[in-house]
């Protein structure tokens, strides 16, 4: 009897406990599926410090423009700021929660010895109330923009977990009228279009600049010999070599990810075909063999595939194949014109020019789903290329009858023109992360 009672007690207890347990675990779960698709709200307080000596560059403004251009941040309007801290002790997190900022950047630029500047900045997480980054630099006045881009990169990486691309650079071709003739230049600039440096000037057209994976060399096509010839130029010291000057077309250079090979288009055998050249000994391998035009090769990041443009289907479309030329397959089916593809860093997307009815837009092709996403609404976009982190695309477009550079976030949400250079700007190419400083 007692045993039975004990058993019952235990059973009752068990039931109670089970009930309690189920109650305790019954935590309300709320599903959140919608949100605001936008940049992370960030407050960038104008940097303090300078007294009567004004630095040549507004570092905070450069940082703000960088972050805004990326599309991943929405710098908040300074008019709503409650306080304007310049150092750690002045930061009141509540002030920034009021304006719904998620992150805060403060800093200062002060004169240092030998005409240099000391730049300090701090990045805060408003809701965790902690500093995420804090650095100090001492630089010459002409390096202030570079420091600003480095700060942007640090902020970007801290808050997104991905490397920023603000310290990378872009190469592009400009065309200026010089009397009756034109002057063409191959230039390199900061990722925001500032600080352009001319790598090469020519009276004849220059096209198709392509960065080597280490960022030290550019391959390009020059018409200086009145026909397209392929060159390679070291951006550090300006030395250049002729790579391909076969009969017919020598064009569309593309570096293999390891930097040892170049894919290119040659018509030396009569019809534009895609070849791969081993740079160490200039040996050529022909990959395509089709009566249609095959051109604009581009390497997948893993180096195993090459995508290219071909009109073998009647109209230009994007195809891909293995690096030995096998397994050719078409990848674009939407739109009557698709060309000039290049891979994203993760190999999952191609950016390309997609055209229909005479309008050409920068677009994104999701390789797995074959979904083609048009990113721009300007009519004559060309030469799109991914930023090395895959989050932005640089392209050329037309404005007021001349070519300008623009960037678009890879979700198509934020588009911005880069600083307008003189003349007509075309054929942009975004550098890899490994940047180097040109000599001049």
């Amino acid at each position, binding site marked *: 009897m007692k045993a039975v009672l004990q058993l019952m007690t235990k059973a009752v207890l068990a039931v109670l406990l089970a009930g309690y347990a189920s109650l305790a675990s019954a935590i309300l*779960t709320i*599903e*959140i599926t919608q*949100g605001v*698709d936008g940049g992370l*709200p960030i407050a960038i307080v104008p940097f303090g410090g300078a007294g009567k000596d004004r630095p040549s560059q507004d570092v905070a403004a450069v940082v703000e423009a960088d972050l805004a251009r990326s599309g*991943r941040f929405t710098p908040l309007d300074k008019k709503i700021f409650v306080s304007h801290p310049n150092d750690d002790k002045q930061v009141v997190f509540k002030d920034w929660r009021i304006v719904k900022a998620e992150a805060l950047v403060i800093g200062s630029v002060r004169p240092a010895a030998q005409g240099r500047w000391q730049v300090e900045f701090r990045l805060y997480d408003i809701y965790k109330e902690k500093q995420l980054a804090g650095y100090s630099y001492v630089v010459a006045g002409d390096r202030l923009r570079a420091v600003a881009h480095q700060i942007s990169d640090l902020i970007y990486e801290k808050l997104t977990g991905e490397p920023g691309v603000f310290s990378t650079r872009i190469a592009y071709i400009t065309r200026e009228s010089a009397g009756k003739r034109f002057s063409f230049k191959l230039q390199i600039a900061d990722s925001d279009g500032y600080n352009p440096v001319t790598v090469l000037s020519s009276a004849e057209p220059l096209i198709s600049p392509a960065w080597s994976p280490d960022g030290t060399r550019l391959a390009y096509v020059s018409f200086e010999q009145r026909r397209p010839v392929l060159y390679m130029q070291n951006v550090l010291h300006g030395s250049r070599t002729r790579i391909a000057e076969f009969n017919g077309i020598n064009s569309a250079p593309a570096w293999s990810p390891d930097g040892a090979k170049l894919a290119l288009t040659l018509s030396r055998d009569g019809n534009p075909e895609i070849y791969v050249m081993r740079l160490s000994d200039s040996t050529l391998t022909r990959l395509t063999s089709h009566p249609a035009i095959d051109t604009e090769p581009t390497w997948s990041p893993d180096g195993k595939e090459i995508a290219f443009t071909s009109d073998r289907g009647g109209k230009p479309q994007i195809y891909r194949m293995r690096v030995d030329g096998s397994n050719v397959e078409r990848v674009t089916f939407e739109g009557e014109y698709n060309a000039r593809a290049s891979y994203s860093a993760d190999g999952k997307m191609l950016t390309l020019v997609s055209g229909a009815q005479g309008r050409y837009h920068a677009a994104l092709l999701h390789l797995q789903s074959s979904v083609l996403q048009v990113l721009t609404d300007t009519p004559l976009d060309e030469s799109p290329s991914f930023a090395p982190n895959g989050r932005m695309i640089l392209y050329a477009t037309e404005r007021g009858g001349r070519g300008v550079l623009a960037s678009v976030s890879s979700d198509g949400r934020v588009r911005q023109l880069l600083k307008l250079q003189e003349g007509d700007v075309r054929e942009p190419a975004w550098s890899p992360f490994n940047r180097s400083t040109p000599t001049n």
Partner: protein
Amino acid sequence: MLSGHVRRLPGGRKAIVYAVLVHLALIALVVVGFRWQAKPPAPPAKVVQAQAVNDAETQKEIERRKKQEREREQQETKKKHEQQERERLEQTKIAEQKRKDEDKRKAVEAEKKRKHDAQQAEIKKKKEAEERRKSAESSLKEQLVREEKERTEAKTKAEQAARAQSELARIEGLIRQKVERNWVRPAGWTKGMECVVRVRLAPTGEVISAAISRPSGSPAFDRSVENAVYKASPLPLPEDKGLFEHFRELELRFRPEGQT
């Protein structure tokens, strides 16, 4: 009552009456005795006649009368005794009667008492029964009332539960809306990404803590989720403080939808 009347006559007056009666009877006897000379005179009637006749006779008569008187007196005494006896008897009888009456009365009274008692008992019993009935009735009533109350309470509870449920759902919706308004989804999110965050709330709705319990794999995404929760603070809560317990600890499951 006979006995009472007798008792009212005093003894002296009674004797006179008797004497008159006897004399009248003697006169009657003298008259009658003239006719009946031969016959022995009736003793009472001879008294008056003897006076009128002679002394011898008178003496004799006196003797006789005396004797008669004695006899009469004896008779009288006897009668008196008898009377007394009778009276005594009567008294006894009365007493008896009285006793009997008393007994009877007592009996009656006893009976009465018994009856009364019985009646009382009956009344009591009835009363008790009534009370029992009443109490039973009232307990039944109470039970009914109780049941009704319970039913009402159950109904109320059910209604309250339903109200609470709809209130919970309403607040859930408000929380969802507020968090969604504050969630800046970072570029590069894809369908299938999921981040679960455990949120602890103060009774004011202030977010005490938001801890990622299941990360999405993207630090930016996770950060956006945490910030969404903090930015939405204070979260809406039901006005009914009793429902706060449901919201003390929440799980928010971020699963973006609406894009490729």
